[in-house]
């Protein structure tokens, strides 16, 4: 039986190690559930750590392709890591599945890149829609000062303003920033109805505590955010302050579907009670995409054939129905608006509104 090697390159160490952990666990969960053959080929996963450093990612990718004969590349925790691999993908014609990084532009960098996570514009826009429909007039945006943050700020603002809202102030927080005090104080002093936040997961939880401590909620400022801030993985430890936060995202552990129930159960069992979060689903669906595409090509993993098969693929993921946009190779999926609630003594993102089958708005607009 022939083997198709899938190289999974992720930050397993360093500040973004939790991304690597979740994505790889999701990918493994898929193989555990669906077996290791697809399209008549045996699938072999090779996991490598890039420490979140772009030139490492690129070198590892190149080595996997050249030395290990890897047919598919996958993983990529952060935008620059994916960007660094794009030339390799193009030059070697290697299908490349982005499972975590979220900046819109990635799929434009190479025709061999596809994505199973989501883009920041994709889940920032619905938050803007929801806010404007729910009596919020004046908002301060507060985002991490780097690519994804800027994306989130831009698309939320665009949607919110278009629907008649007012942005009182746009605050950006440096990536290396131990204390949120000055930024929160700025928010407080602007007296908005709500603050829209994007911060990478982990940082978000710290933010949440300081948000509560500073009494912003008491001052009548509502917290709305992208789902990264209320990452299911650590949501529980954020405690009471998180309750009531409204976020938009493509996946919640508590998503109500049989596929998801099975997924969560298997995942928690295999990973010592760790909750699967949106990153893990990116990994899981990445494998699903690879399997489906290989089934379609009957095991042909060569770049052009594989990518042709990828276009228009659709399947039911733990997060709900998803498909791959044939034009942009980006994912089309539902975005849910959720509220943090206590369920059986555990904190959960509870979905209460669905925006169905959204495309990445940036690429949609570009046309």
């Amino acid at each position, binding site marked *: 039986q022939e083997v198709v090697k899938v190289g999974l390159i992720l930050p397993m160490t360093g500040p973004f190690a939790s991304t690597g952990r979740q994505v790889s666990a999701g990918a493994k969960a898929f193989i555990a559930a669906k077996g290791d053959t697809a399209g008549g080929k045996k699938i072999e996963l090779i996991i490598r750590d890039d420490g979140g450093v772009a030139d490492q990612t690129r070198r590892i990718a190149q080595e996997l392709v050249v030395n290990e004969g890897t047919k598919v590349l996958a993983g990529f925790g952060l935008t620059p890591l994916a960007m660094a691999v794009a030339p390799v993908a193009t030059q070697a014609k290697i299908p490349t599945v982005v499972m975590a990084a979220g900046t819109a532009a990635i799929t434009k960098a190479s025709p061999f890149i596809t994505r199973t996570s989501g883009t920041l514009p994709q889940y920032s826009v619905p938050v803007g829609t929801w806010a404007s429909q729910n009596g919020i007039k004046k908002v301060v945006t507060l985002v991490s000062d780097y690519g994804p943050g800027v994306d989130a700020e831009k698309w939320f603002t665009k949607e919110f303003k278009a629907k008649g809202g007012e942005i009182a102030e746009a605050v950006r927080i440096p990536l290396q920033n131990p204390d949120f005090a000055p930024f929160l104080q700025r928010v407080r002093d602007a007296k908005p109805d709500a603050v829209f936040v994007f911060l990478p997961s982990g940082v978000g939880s710290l933010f949440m505590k*300081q948000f509560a401590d500073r009494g912003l909620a008491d001052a009548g400022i509502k917290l709305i955010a992208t789902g990264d801030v209320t990452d299911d993985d650590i949501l529980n430890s954020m405690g009471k302050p998180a309750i009531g936060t409204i976020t938009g995202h493509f996946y919640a552990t508590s998503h109500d579907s049989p596929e998801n129930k099975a997924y969560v159960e298997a995942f928690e069992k295999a990973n010592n009670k760790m909750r699967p979060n949106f990153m893990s689903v990116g990994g899981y669906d990445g494998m699903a995409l690879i399997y489906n595409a290989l089934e379609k090509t009957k095991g042909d993993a060569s770049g052009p054939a594989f990518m042709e098969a990828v276009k228009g693929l659709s399947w039911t993921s733990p997060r709900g129905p998803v498909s791959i946009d044939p034009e942009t190779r980006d994912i089309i999926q539902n975005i849910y608006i959720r509220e943090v609630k206590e369920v059986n003594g555990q904190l959960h993102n509870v979905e209460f509104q669905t925006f169905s089958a959204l495309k990445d708005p940036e690429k949609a607009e570009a046309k």
Partner: protein
Amino acid sequence: MLTILFDGVAYGMLLFILACGLTVTLGLMNFINLAHGAFAMTGGYVTVVMMNRYGISFYWCLPAAFLITAILGLILERTLYQWLYRADHLDQVLFSIGIVFMAVAGADYFMGGQQQLINLPPELSGRMDVFGVGIGRYRLFTIVICAVLALALQLILSKTRFGSRLRAAVDDRRVAMGLGINVPVVFALTFAFGSGLAGLGGAMGAEILGLEPNFPLKFMIYFLIVVSVGGTSTVSGPFLAAMLLGVADVAGKYYVPAIGPFVIYALMIIMLILRPNGLFSRGAGR
């Protein structure tokens, strides 16, 4: 306005608590211990485990974090660190970075990679209004602890013989021994004390700075900034430096957010150019 000042002071104090253990090991013992953050992290994890797993009160966690980290420091000093006092600085850097790496991976292995959060007792969370100035309770608590600590440290080092014995031992170990100073004991105690302070800092900082395996690497730079700007020969230097940096950083980010991230580095470089040996270097001050 005053709230910003207050926040800045509190942030500075937090920096000081975290860095003052380093003032002891780097400043007084002249050992470049980049693993300082690893001790701080230990203190943080001690608190997390005690509070979250065993439900012990935060107030008991602080002394426990100090003690447990101090004991850990003592053990490491006796087994490893003591061989490196006379090594050159690059060796110390390499060695302590090695310790950091091991600590980071170890914490990941035992505690998992995610952010650890603690829930403070209610009287420490939230904020109160004092004459219209919003004051975070925990921040106030930090300031008080820190002020007490700084004062105590200053007294121990300047008013007791222990301080001068320690510096003598650092200046010239051989002759200090020959003149009757029990150098190994002095060093071991000091190192344990410095580690203990780091642990305390970690325990107090976890609330605001967060705690995850990369803590020692992430905050190493901040400790070093405080100690280098403050100078290594006094406690009051780093204390003032921490305040200054805290206030400047917070105010900078509040008033001029566009250049916020540069403020602390620029300030550091300027200070270092003006006072290359720290705010109160013993050489220049007298």
